[in-house]
């Protein structure tokens, strides 16, 4: 491999963008169905977001999984059963490296190569222009299909806060090591999992910590009833307990352990449990109880050395970390190919299949209440089988497409979640996997 495909027409080969977790599983599953695959990766190694050496990697020294091992691993390549319930990010990277080596995926990856544009050719194919990362001559190749797995946690969403701030402001993507927190007065903005993790790290290192959240959340502990909480939750789902009952159980469990967090000054959640992306953090209530974290509302403005809060208070941090998440970004694709809205959020069938381009799929663009890897795996299996069906039985493929396109959004994304910008691709892992399962069954030879 790796000799130049000439004259750039790769015929039935599939182009995969990115060699992170989603890209790797896409490559593996496409190869398994007999496709030739060229995968382009801008970095020089696999692992994507999980590779802390990558400049776009959001991981920080203390990052651990928030979903437990069985709900995080690829369904056909388990993590070692001797690993902890919630592995460290460096273990996840070594897992991805072993996955790539085990299935010999590296042979199909062009490292240090960025995709700068991908344009449909009109007959279902794609013209993909690549370039050495950071410049160099470009090359254009033709592919039969395009599978995008460029990740969605690398383009920081920074809040616009009016006024000048004299201290240091950094996005959580730039936060790597707790050393920057030591003996500082730290304000962490953002109530997501990263924001909560950083507030806890700051509580262990900094002189003073404020944690600014817009709303109250339900903080799930990592363990309940002696098991990882997500495993207990899936047991309730297995028993098909109705949502109302699960919400009641959730509130009971919270009441019996950490209790009402408003007594620490947190706002009351404006939604029920299960109506936002789960925040899994056992230590936040602990440090609230120790008085090491002071909850504060929204930051409305900066004023010199001070931050003004929505309740009129002024605080004077010397380091502000904005853990305000990331935006999906597909700079090599015209937005209309993905039916993206003004914020760049694509509208895809099952968050995977482009509606007007049957040979374009996106892998891993979901935010489930479990790990993403299993979903990315099954998305890849479905994509590979879909692309093969198009080749072997176009008539059936058309029928499947017709049937799938009639499925309402609610059938695969039943979750009712708080209306915020970051919850647009929230899925319930069970509903979502059931939808993929039905698609896979539809594509089976009769």
């Amino acid at each position, binding site marked *: 491999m790796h000799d130049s495909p000439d004259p750039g027409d790769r015929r039935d080969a599939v182009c995969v963008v990115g060699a992170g977790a989603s890209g790797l599983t896409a490559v593996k599953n496409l190869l*398994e*169905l*007999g496709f030739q695959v060229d995968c382009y990766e801008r970095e020089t190694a696999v692992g994507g977001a999980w590779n802390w050496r990558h400049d776009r990697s959001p991981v920080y020294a203390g990052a651990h999984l928030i979903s437990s*091992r*069985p*709900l995080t691993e690829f*369904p*056909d*390549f*388990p993590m*070692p*059963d*001797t690993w902890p319930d919630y592995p460290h990010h460096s273990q996840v990277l070594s897992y991805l490296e072993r996955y790539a*080596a*085990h*299935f*010999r995926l590296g042979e199909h990856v062009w490292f240090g190569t960025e995709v700068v544009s991908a344009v449909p050719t009109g007959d279902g194919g794609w013209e993909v222009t690549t370039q050495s990362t950071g410049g160099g001559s470009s090359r254009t190749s033709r592919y039969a299909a395009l599978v995008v797995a460029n990740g969605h946690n690398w383009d920081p969403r920074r809040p616009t806060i009016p006024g000048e701030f004299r201290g240091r402001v950094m996005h959580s993507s730039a936060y790597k090591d707790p050393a920057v927190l030591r003996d500082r007065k730290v304000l962490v903005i953002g109530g997501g999992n990263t924001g909560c993790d950083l507030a806890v790290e700051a509580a262990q290192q900094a002189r003073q910590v404020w944690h600014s959240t817009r709303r109250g959340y339900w903080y799930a502990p990592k363990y309940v009833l002696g098991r990882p909480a*997500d*495993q*207990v939750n*899936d*047991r309730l*789902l*297995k028993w098909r307990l109705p949502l109302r009952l699960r919400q009641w159980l959730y509130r009971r469990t919270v009441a019996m352990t950490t209790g009402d967090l408003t007594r620490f000054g947190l706002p009351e959640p404006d939604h029920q449990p299960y109506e936002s992306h789960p925040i899994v953090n056992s230590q936040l209530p602990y440090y609230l109880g120790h008085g090491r974290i002071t909850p504060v509302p929204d930051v409305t403005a900066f004023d010199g050395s001070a931050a003004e809060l929505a309740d009129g208070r002024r605080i004077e941090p010397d380091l502000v970390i904005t853990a305000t998440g990331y935006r999906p970004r597909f700079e090599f694709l015209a937005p209309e190919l993905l039916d993206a809205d003004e914020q760049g959020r694509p509208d895809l069938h099952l968050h995977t299949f482009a509606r007007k381009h049957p040979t374009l799929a996106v892998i891993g663009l979901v935010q489930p209440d479990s790990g993403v890897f299993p979903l990315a795996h*099954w998305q890849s299996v479905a994509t590979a089988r879909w692309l093969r069906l198009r080749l072997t039985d176009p008539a059936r493929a058309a029928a499947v497409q017709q049937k799938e396109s009639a499925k309402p959004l609610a059938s695969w994304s039943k979750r009712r979640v708080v209306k915020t910008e970051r919850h647009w691709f929230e899925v319930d892992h*069970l509903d979502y*996997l*059931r939808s*993929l*399962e039905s698609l*896979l*069954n539809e594509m089976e030879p009769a």
Partner: protein
Amino acid sequence: MTAFDLLRFEDWTNPVPPADREVVSLLPEEDDGRPPLLFVPGLGHGAWAFAEHWLPHAAGRGFPAHALTPRPGGDLRAQVHDVVQTAASLPRQAVLIGHGVGALVVARALGRYPARAAVLAAPVLGGWSALGSALRANPGGTLPALVGGRLSLSARQLFQSGPPALTAEQITGYLSRLDPKPRAELLRRATPPRPVGDAPVLVIGSPDDRVVARPALDRAAAAYSGAPLMFPGMGHDLMLEASWAEPIDAILDWLTKQIK
């Protein structure tokens, strides 16, 4: 063929606990990229049964060869878990080779791990048919097990008598190492899961096997849309028989063709 297996509540909510796994490994002098082989023994056998001949022979032919002893007291699910864990820990996609009940474990493991290829040797996929054969060949050793007593396997069940034959000492030695602890779940009728990935599957056996009857062998092969490769004159324990070299050579030849 069973359906796709996306919802795995059992694995998600009640993962198999880790256990120390005995893996015997023999690596070839030079690694030229051949897939590693993972041998899975059947009822009462351990990694030793493969370490006797097949492991060194496979390593001699350039294949990294590993054999796994089932965890003591483990049920079928735990055994499948151990096979998948061991396979995934190898540096490359592994070939799973199961013998007897070990072939049932491999058939199940294929639903969890995309093996490079798989071989079911004298496979015991249906417990009832194996029980019937065992009652015919060795009623005295089998009947007590039905009422909760000990199961003992006999030389007549596992080895053939005609030339070339094992010596009496060899047979006594092998039999003394057997420790079969059958579980009732082996009698449960269950279709093996849909294999993940695209592993080619080879079924081998002997028409003179007194554990796996000919129809059972044909059924197993048909389930993977093939015909069994036969080694007439051999007993059930293909890897311990005096003519052990024939089946392993056939397996490795088949494999060499598959991985081209």
